[in-house]
């Protein structure tokens, strides 16, 4: 059964919230139940930003969870906070460009990749969120890549249109790295 409770977390501006939305839109496009809930308020401004995304074949009860089945951590504070919380058997995607510690857990699958560096090579370090999302989807098989590409087309804002192709590349590059992990 497809069911994933994912936390996306990073500095404000790293696009953790958008990556989460992209996953939620993709889940919805595949007729799954979805919830997306952000941390909001003062911590939005400059501090860490995170969101919880649940994508499921079942109707969703609790939209806020203590132990995610997957976490995407884009910076060090996020790693410190969420690495210990991932459920055994879950997935942790780590942006090693900004996280210089390693997970010591052996009961989860850890995908460590330099998402910011990969994104920068593709033209813009701010696509690290999509690189990481690619890795997450590869690891969980939650939705199809085609669906995510479609949602990128629909939801990338007007002023970021020029980054559509590089974003698609970023998605697949993240997936490729996850596969080789």
């Amino acid at each position: 059964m497809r069911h994933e409770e994912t936390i996306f977390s990073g500095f404000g501006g790293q696009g953790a919230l958008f990556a989460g939305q992209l996953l939620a839109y993709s889940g919805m496009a595949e007729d799954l139940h979805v919830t997306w809930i952000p941390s909001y308020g003062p911590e939005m401004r400059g501090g860490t930003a995170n969101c919880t995304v649940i994508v499921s074949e079942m109707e969703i009860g609790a939209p806020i969870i203590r132990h995610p089945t997957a976490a995407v951590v884009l910076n060090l504070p996020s790693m410190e906070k969420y690495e210990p919380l991932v459920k055994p058997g879950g997935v942790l995607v780590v942006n090693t460009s900004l996280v210089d510690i390693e997970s010591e857990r052996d009961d989860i699958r850890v995908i460590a990749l330099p998402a910011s560096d990969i994104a920068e090579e593709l033209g813009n370090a701010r696509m690290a969120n999509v690189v990481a999302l690619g890795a997450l989807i590869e690891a969980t098989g939650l939705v199809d890549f085609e669906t995510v590409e479609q949602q990128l087309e629909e939801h990338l804002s007007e002023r970021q249109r020029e980054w559509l192709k590089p974003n698609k590349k970023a998605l697949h590059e993240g997936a490729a790295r996850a596969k080789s992990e």
Partner: protein
Amino acid sequence: MAKELLKGNVAFAEAAVRNGLEAYFGYPITPQSEGLEHLSGRLIEEGRVFLQAESEVAAINMVYGAACAGVRVMTSTSGPGLALMAEGLSYIAGSEVPVVIVNMMRGGPGLGNIQPAQADYNFMTKSAGHGDFRPLVLAPSSVQEIIDMVGLAFELAEKYRTLVMIAGDGSIGQMMESAELPPMQPVRETRPDWAVTGAKGREKNVITSLALGAENLERLNLRLQEKLAEVKANEVRYQTYDTDDADLLLIAYGTVGRICTSVVREARKAGIKVGLLRPQTLWPFAEDKIRELAEQARGVLVVEMSAGQMLEDVERAVAGAAPIRFHGRLGGVVPMVDEIMADLKKLDAETK
């Protein structure tokens, strides 16, 4: 209409537009400001009225004025703003004009914080202002439900010429979920007979909450009470989950209500036969149904994001028919499934 990924705040605002909302007056406050922002664009686009007031005090009195003029009007706020509106709420109740208010509850008291909370329960259901009145209070637990309840709120407000509140919380406001908006309804073309529209071809209409003379005011109050009794008799709403064979009964509303659906699922997996009653109206309250279910249950667990405000109503309804445990989180902390499970297991053990 297709399903869309909608944020709770945007969803209630757009649902209001589509239900023929003619005017909105409000003041920004987290965690509901996206609703005000959405309406600032949409209502102007539709040629209707949007005004950002100088305070919640002014906002509610603008709402009051527009309601007297006979238009479909609403505002939205959060606890500290609702406190400022209390004056207007009482006048609105006393002069019997229909008004809808969304309250996205946040942590208190005082400035508190902006995290989700349910500590305005007593305020909304029991003491929304001075004098004897109660608003009708609806409690949605999902983005879809808040959309549906906006339409219902206008219907009930106009049917009973009363104040209807939608008790959301920060989580409902900030969450995005797939939901379906209603089709666009046209704005009403006529205004009610009682509204102030100019004394043309009729006697003047006066809308006031002033009733000099004790007997006079008592008559007004008795009429209000009669109306509230009718609301109580007809408008209790709740949703039950797996209550048919339940040994234990969970009671929770709003965000906590939906969290408890996960608890039911987990508990059933663990072999505990638990059911859930989720009140969809906080006033009137599902006391008869709660009493009925409590009589069949070994124990009741009430879960709230407050120190036990709804708990008092549950205690009154259960009236000793079953032991009651309470699990409350305060200050904006959202209770998690595991901690509710732990309490449920305790209740299970205690009542075996």
